[in-house]
């Protein structure tokens, strides 16, 4: 028998085991998490990297942004804490948007995996926390300092000993310390589980992670290059507008296809704003790369190799490459436009595959006291998605993120609100040869005796999702309080009997009707 030790069969088997190890760790994390965003919306990710921080395997269920950002975070940590400064039992922590996931609401935990005294790889988990202090998340915040606690790159655990100072600082600065720290310890437990599974696998196979990682990366990279190379060389552009504040925000891309590489440049995009919609480069890359992959090669696994042929750039000081201390809590509002803009740029190249623009998710966050107990709740609302050359767009579904709704009964159990309706918003999808999907119509009444602070992230209230190839734009969204339009960038105090209506936009149509 001449099957060598990393032939197409052996590699497939070892890889299956690696992915199942990462999935075991994420299952354990989801079960222990206090965050509704993790449980209901998979707003987390687990990754295993090699010793250079290159991603080898990622959890199967996680949102697209983290697939791109988490390995980059590990590389930042390696630069900050070189291997000689790390010991077995160390655990690292940060929520720095530029190093992490683009906003401070996600805490990332990274653990070096030691074997025989040296580091073989890293386990990393990032997750949206139940609370991070500061003002409630809103697009109106002007600087990062308002957004909550900043955790620089620190050691949370040193050689197995917890740094109580770090824990005390975090606990003192968040609204629900037992939940936020509970989720951090859940992240640590998931890293440890991944370490155990990896060591078992390496013991069984006698293999070295570097070789395995190199082989997997090489094959993924080749497959992605082949997918890009199938496109005609050229520069393709698209200009997309977002509601903005005093004026519209412009996303201008230029997609450069050169052989087997694709570069997306964002020159011409709006300047950074004293609002929380700034999108740091790590996040700009993640969402652009997601669009490339979904359109060109959805079946290639996620790892370092599949992203190597893709690069992005944006001039410093723009909304897609902001300078510190830009606020970024609502970066999804801008980042979520990037995959859509990428597809629209290629509308003439791949007319039968692209999807017309739709609308990303909206949300509302509320905190207060009810029957003697503090609560903080965040809930997502999705919108209509764009049509294709051959079919209608999907109604009320999450894209490009994957954030589910919270059941009405669960919302009402957690906060003093009564949901009046949650309905499909008929006719909101843009017309065309194929119609865009419809948005959502959601209304609730505040029923608590103690007034609560409520903030909204609403998108596409002014700039409608455009159609493609002559299709009509979708209908814009709307936010009202007691029947009056209100500005989602402000914080609102809700009193008993107040009624809020949130309507999300419909997707763009495709082709002339």
């Amino acid at each position, binding site marked *: *028998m*001449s*099957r060598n030790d990393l*032939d*197409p*069969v052996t590699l*497939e*088997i070892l890889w*299956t085991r690696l992915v*199942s190890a990462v*999935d*075991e760790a994420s*299952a*354990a994390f*989801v*079960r*222990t*998490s*206090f965050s*509704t965003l*993790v449980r*209901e919306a998979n707003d987390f990710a687990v990754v295993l990297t090699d010793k250079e921080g290159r991603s080898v395997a990622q959890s199967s269920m996680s949102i*697209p942004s983290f697939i791109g950002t988490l390995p980059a975070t590990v590389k930042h940590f390696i630069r900050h804490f070189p291997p000689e400064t790390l010991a077995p039992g160390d655990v690292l922590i940060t929520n720095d948007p530029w190093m992490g996931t683009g906003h401070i609401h996600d805490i990332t935990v990274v653990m070096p995996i030691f074997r025989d005294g040296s580091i073989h790889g890293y386990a990393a988990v990032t997750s949206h926390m*139940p609370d991070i202090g500061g003002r409630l998340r809103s697009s109106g915040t002007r600087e990062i300092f308002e957004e909550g606690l900043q955790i620089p790159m620190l050691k949370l655990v040193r050689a197995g000993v917890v740094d109580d100072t770090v824990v005390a600082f975090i606990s003192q600065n968040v609204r*629900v310390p*037992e*939940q936020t720290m*509970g989720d951090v310890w859940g992240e640590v*437990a998931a890293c*440890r589980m991944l370490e155990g599974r990896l060591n078992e696998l390496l013991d069984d196979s006698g293999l070295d992670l570097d070789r395995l990682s190199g082989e997997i990366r090489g*094959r*993924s990279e080749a497959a992605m290059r082949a997918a890009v190379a199938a496109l005609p060389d050229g520069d393709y552009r698209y200009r997309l507008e977002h509601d903005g504040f005093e004026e519209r925000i412009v996303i201008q891309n230029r997609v450069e296809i050169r052989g087997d590489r694709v570069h997306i440049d964002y020159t011409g995009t709006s300047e950074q704003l004293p609002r929380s919609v700034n999108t740091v480069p790590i996040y700009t890359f993640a969402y652009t790369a997601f669009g490339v*992959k*979904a359109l060109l*090669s*959805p*079946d*290639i*696994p996620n790892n370092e190799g599949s992203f190597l042929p893709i690069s992005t750039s944006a001039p410093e000081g723009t909304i897609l490459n902001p300078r510190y201390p830009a606020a970024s809590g609502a970066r999804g509002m801008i980042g979520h436009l990037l995959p859509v803009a990428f597809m629209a740029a290629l509308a003439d190249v791949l007319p039968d*595959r692209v*999807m017309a623009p739709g609308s990303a998710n909206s949300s509302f966050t509320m905190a207060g006291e009810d029957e003697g107990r503090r609560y903080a709740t965040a809930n997502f609302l*999705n919108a209509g998605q764009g049509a294709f050359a051959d079919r209608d767009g*999907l109604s*009320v*579904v*999450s894209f490009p993120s994957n*954030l*589910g*709704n919270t*059941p*009405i*009964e669960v919302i*009402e*159990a957690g906060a003093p609100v009564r*949901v*009046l*309706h*949650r*309905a*499909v918003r008929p006719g909101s999808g843009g017309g065309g040869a194929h119609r865009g999907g419809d948005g959502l119509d959601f209304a609730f009444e505040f029923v608590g005796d103690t007034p609560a602070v409520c903030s909204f992230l609403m998108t596409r209230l002014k700039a409608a999702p455009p159609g493609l190839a002559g299709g009509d734009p979708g209908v814009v969204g709307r936010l009202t309080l007691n029947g009056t339009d209100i500005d989602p960038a402000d914080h609102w105090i809700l009193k008993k009997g107040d009624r809020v209506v949130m309507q999300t936009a419909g997707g763009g149509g495709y082709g002339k009707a």
Partner: protein
Amino acid sequence: MNAPASLPAAGTAPRLRIAVDIGGTFTDGIAEESGTGRIWVGKCLTTPADPGEGVSEVIAQLLDKMAADGERVEEVVHGTTLVTNTLIERRGAPTGLVVTKGTRDTLDIAREVRYDLYDLRLELPEPLVPGEARAEVGARMDRTGAEITPLDEAMVEAVADAIGAMGVSAVAVCLLHAYVNEAHEEALGKALAARFPDLAISLSSRVAREIREYERMSTTSANAYVQPLVRDYLNALGERIGGAGIAGLLRIMLSSGGFTSAEAAADTPILLLESGPAAGVISALNTGIEAGFDTILAFDMGGTTAKACVATGGAPDIAHTFEAARVKRFKKGSGLPILIPSIDLIEIGAGGGSIATIDALGLLKVGPRSAGSVPGPAAYGRGGEEATVTDADLVLGYLDANSFLGGEMSLRTDLAEAALGRLGARLGLSVTEVAAGIADIVNENMAAAARVHIAEKGLDPRAFTMVATGGAGPVHAVEVARRLRVRRLLCPIAAGAGSCLGLLAAPPRVDRAWSKPTLLEALDWDEVTAMLSGLRVDAETELTSASADLGAIAWSVLIEMRYAGQGSVISITLPYDEIASRPVAAMRESFEAAYRDLYGNTVPNARIEVVTWRLTGQSGVESRRFSWAEGRGGGAATPKAHREVYLPAERRFASAPVYDRYALPPGTRLDGPVILEERESTLVVPLTAAVEILPDLAVCVDFGEPA
């Protein structure tokens, strides 16, 4: 159902029980003689137009073989795939839905997530009830079950008028917070029943009393959707059985592995969703317990799908959510959520027909696409061009070209080799290397899925005894067992009719649930005890109708708890009688112990919340030993042949003896490598292991101490 409540006069002849299972291809039946455990087997082709015809045929065969008349049959136990198939094929009744004002679109909106991140052209499951067959009602409860807007006469009238105008034959009622207070649903149900006597009515508070309106609405709609069909089917079946002169009861297998009366099954047919697979698991468990082991991994592998289920302490793990009729096979999230107690099975896209392909990265992949039976594996010679697991098994010597399905169908080795060769040429591997690779990969896929499943439950695979069933199960089980490091493997008798043995071995069981998320320290114990005793009275009525002996029923309460703020729950179980003592401390202790077991540590300062109470009544675990009534195991321990078999651990072929399994008498000991053939399957032991024929003719393969 016209079954009398008393048992027929028995006379001196032993009484009989009959199990009938309707499969896609065959309808199988087994009759058991009470007391002796002797069994007879019957079989005929399934009659899809009127499945009852096959049932009559099989029962006639069995009575004929036993030279018995129907008087002696005390019960007929039945498992059915009718509910699953009705949902998959969308041929249920036109169904209406009544919901709280503002929630009419809940079935369309679902949870707003995509089950595949990268698939832009996602197909979503079509709701069972179309938009025009939904009516809203203005009555409203709050989260505590307090009435905010009462249900008045005019509302009831308007709903009844709307249902009348829809012309539906079934209706589901699902109102917000009905899991805490069912009053509005009950009142609507009563009014609708009075006005439309033939309408099948399903109330969410009865079908799935759990928080989360979309999932509860989906479950209740599915129940209503299948109800008219199931009711007619069970009535017809009852008549068939009566027509065969059988006066005994008809009992139906539930997804939870218990069984119930045909009447109760017709009320909540959605509980039969996994009736067939549950019977298979119960059968595997029975084999394990009979051999003295109660920590069991039931493993079944057929043509397209492999299934695995974990049982500890002799009882299968029960899950309380399930997904039916997935749009994309094996893709979690692409189906209709169903909240019912169901044996916790995982399904893997791996079977004899699974097709091997090369993916975009140049790696060999196996499944989940399957060649099915048409065209089937290349070796079937029915035009299949692609290499499958069965083709690999043939080339590796695991299957014999001439004794497949007892020799009824011969396999074409030349076609299998040609298909494997085409794949090998693209990978730079020989035919044998590709075949061994396919077997390796499909075995690893199944082991990986089982490993994650076992880990999610915080258990260690090395503690398990694996029981393998299904046509391809015994062929692959030894290698899957080795990868999981389980200690031993059992292969029960009658692999082809295994579900029937499960039907005969199943204990009576009944489940009820009640959700009301409340902090442990704030529980209203008067309410809890009142609710549980109400559920028990209701459950006892059902057991009585299934003629179970109430004295033999053990009652337990499974309590789902979590730290307030968490989403997932952890279950603890208490005997029913302990609830009266308001065991707060015991509940806290059990919860913290279970939490620590799973996650290493508890959460300091967090408050514990009780979410759902689940009452279960079940007769104690006892195994039944079955033995062939017609001579088996009477031969000598001599091989009928030798053939070359591939040994994966050594990566070479070696000669192995081949035995006719049912010629081997109990107590026979053999050493691997060895092959044991039976009509429906082949047990392949391609390594050194101790093989023994047990007293009930099950085969035990012992791997020794785990590595």
